[in-house]
């Protein structure tokens, strides 16, 4: 079979690993390196001072790492979300980041010595002010939406944001989470595989609210000059999510990997995050945010589950969601 693959006549990427330039291989999520993601700015910024060649390798992070095992080519992995950290840590592939965490500006404590957060945000329901004049004021109010209001969410079994939602509900309602889902179920227009399909349905006018992030309105404001998309802010609190960077312990480029980890916390790196990733920087005080970002409505209360808590809750929370929506 391999011969047949080779016989197809393709030999695509010529590895231009010039001998004198060391290569830092960074595994990143699929969205990351396109010209609309944060990858290109990060690559250019790091290569400006590292005397190296930063090469992104994109695709599913955890499945690929687990399949590759010791053979992995990765030196650094960027984009592991808080929800997969327990499983990522359990692989034993990652070594300590060795960075001073005092620069972090997250709304939650982050004592982790392995994974370094580089951005953050919260899940939120986003609505369009031209179609919804009175958005629900609380998460509790989502249980008694007017009959015609339809919400589109993501599947917690296939999507990070969908999983964050069921953990959010579980964190607020505990044993009553199933009852919450039963009340919301008639308003759920549909459940999509990932975030982008949901968001597409919302912008096409199919749904009144979409499960997204508190930072989603920023894209519409700063890229489209459209002020009609807003995140409904609830006093019960919003679920915190961060994306992190981890260093592969067995990397053959330890100095470069360390330099990259250190660079993640510098203002140069942090300033690229908001408009490239449409999320909040993890180590940049509000005074240094781009103009207008600090004015985005943000919740007062942040719900944060440690990875142990989240992992302990995950299976039960997803099953409650599935059972309630399958009625």
């Amino acid at each position, binding site marked *: 079979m*391999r011969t047949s693959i080779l016989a197809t006549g393709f030999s695509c990427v010529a590895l231009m690993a010039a001998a004198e330039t060391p290569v830092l291989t960074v595994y990143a999520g699929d969205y990351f390196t396109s010209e609309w993601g944060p990858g290109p700015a990060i690559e250019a910024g790091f290569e400006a001072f590292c005397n190296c060649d930063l090469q992104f390798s994109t695709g599913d992070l955890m499945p690929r790492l687990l399949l590759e095992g010791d053979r992995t080519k990765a030196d650094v992995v960027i984009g592991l979300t808080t929800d997969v950290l327990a499983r990522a840590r359990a692989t034993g592939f990652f070594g300590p980041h060795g960075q001073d965490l005092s620069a972090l500006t997250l709304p939650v404590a982050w004592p982790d010595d392995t994974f370094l957060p580089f951005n953050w945000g919260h899940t939120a329901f986003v609505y369009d002010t031209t179609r919804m004049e009175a958005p629900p004021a609380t998460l509790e109010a989502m249980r008694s939406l007017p009959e015609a209001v339809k919400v589109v969410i993501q599947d917690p079994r296939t999507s990070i944001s969908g999983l964050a939602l069921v953990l959010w509900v579980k964190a607020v309602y505990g044993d009553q989470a199933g009852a919450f889902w039963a009340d919301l179920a008639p308003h759920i227009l549909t459940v999509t595989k990932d975030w982008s399909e949901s968001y597409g349905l919302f912008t096409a006018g199919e749904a009144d609210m979409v499960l997204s992030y508190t930072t989603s309105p920023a894209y519409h404001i700063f890229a489209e000059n459209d002020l009609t998309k807003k995140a409904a802010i609830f006093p019960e609190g919003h679920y915190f999510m961060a994306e992190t960077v981890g260093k592969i312990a067995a990397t053959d480029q330890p100095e470069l990997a360390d330099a990259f980890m250190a660079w993640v916390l510098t203002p140069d790196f942090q300033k690229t995050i908001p408009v490239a990733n449409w999320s909040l920087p993890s180590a940049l005080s509000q005074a240094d945010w781009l103009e207008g970002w600090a004015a985005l409505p943000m919740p007062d209360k942040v719900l944060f589950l440690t990875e142990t808590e989240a992992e302990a809750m995950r299976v039960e929370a997803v099953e409650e969601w599935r059972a309630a929506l*399958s009625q």
Partner: protein
Amino acid sequence: MARGAVAVTGAGVAALVAALVLLPLGAVALRAGAWPSLVPGDAQTLWFTLWQAVVSALLSCLLAVPVARALARRRFAGRGALITLMGAPFLLPVIVAVMGLIAVFGRSGLVNGLLAGLGVAPVSIYGAQGVVLAHVFLNLPLAVRMVLQGWQSIPAERFRLAESLGFAPAQVALHLERPMLRAVLPGAFAVILVVCLTCFAVALTLGGGPKATTVELAIYQAVRFDFDLGRAAMLSGLQFALCATIAVLAWRAVTPTSFGAGLGRAPVVQARGAGPLLADVLAIGLAAGFLLLPLGAIVLRGLPGLAEVPVAVWAAAGRSVTVALISTAATVAAALVLALRVAQGGPGALVLDGIALLPLATSGLVLGTGLFLLVQPWAAPSDLALPVTVAANVALSLPFVYRLLLPEARVLFADYGRLSDSLGLHGAAWLRLVAVPRLARPLGFGAGLVAALSMGDLGVIALFASDQTATLPLVVQRLMAAYRIDTAAAAALVLVAISFALFWAFDAWGRWHAAT
């Protein structure tokens, strides 16, 4: 005829296909180790998967009969273009098709706008009915084409004879059309059933929630989210068994037709009277509306962003076209060899037939994961993204082309086998003078299908993709993930346009050769 050569290459191709499908599955199962048990919800998943697939396939086939009959017996301006255009939904990437359907049948879509104007309660596309609607939208074109080909395979001379004997429409149906449908429909039903069984993007967007979970979705979850390879292997084994059962049942239901050879004249199917005319106009009109309105919506949605499509889209389009053309050449060659070999009959034909349909039952995700496991000890998977895409495209589209070629290959041997033998025609000359001209129509249609399907495939290379090898569907997805929804719609339109152009070019070649 070089029967020996066909037999040897046929066996070789079959072995290659079997290896391509079974080795990755084996690699995944081997890596998984422990064999997991079913979890709550699996029974519901299995039931929903089966139920929606049976209903979708049944509806697609039933609706295809009047449409194909109308297209077979009427001649009107633009008929050829309409037939080609109506094939397009089958070629759409599922996510693009869903967006088109939503624009027509969604909450704020065309149909509900009209209904609201009439004061009628709105219809909802979300739920099981939406899944069936979408599957019929995607697969009705395939069913129509398969049945239409059945009609066209009845030699014109038989219809002339029926007419000169004064057959009533009921007698034409009894002696000519019903035997043809008996031969064509079970195959079409089985193929569409299996397509619907293994499809999950439709169910997930339109299904309305976890009630509409399909087996393929559970596999997706196991591979990409839970990283539970044991569960992925078990579920795809289950899917395999399900599809294999269906294939065997369909095989038993197929009865080959024997209309004998004709002179290859254009068929003149007559149905006089106002009743049949009205039925035909309705069938064509409704099918065209159902299939073409969502296409129109996709075009309208994509046009505004077309001017500012980024360079990356065109680069990806170039890669996708290259991949599609290589996949097409390999698939058509493999399918032709297999179909000729199986049509010859003899020992092993049944086994080869099973192998040719094997890839239909496989899960693209498990195939991709298995290939990754197989390739990874030898080479960097990202360097092999495009070859692996080609291999997966060939495997996943081979059954369609094979299915299209097989009945015609059987007819070819039955009608022209003895003549070819007595003339001593064999080898390349036989291929050029007998096989290709007689099979041109399904060859062209099949090549068009592979080319278009290869433009759209995505699931398999999720583990392999790198930036330098991003194909067009991947770029569409990246644009959507970066909020660039208008640009994504434009890129999707580019994708649809190229897929359709490729399909049209191959299909037109086939029809042109069949006509001369």
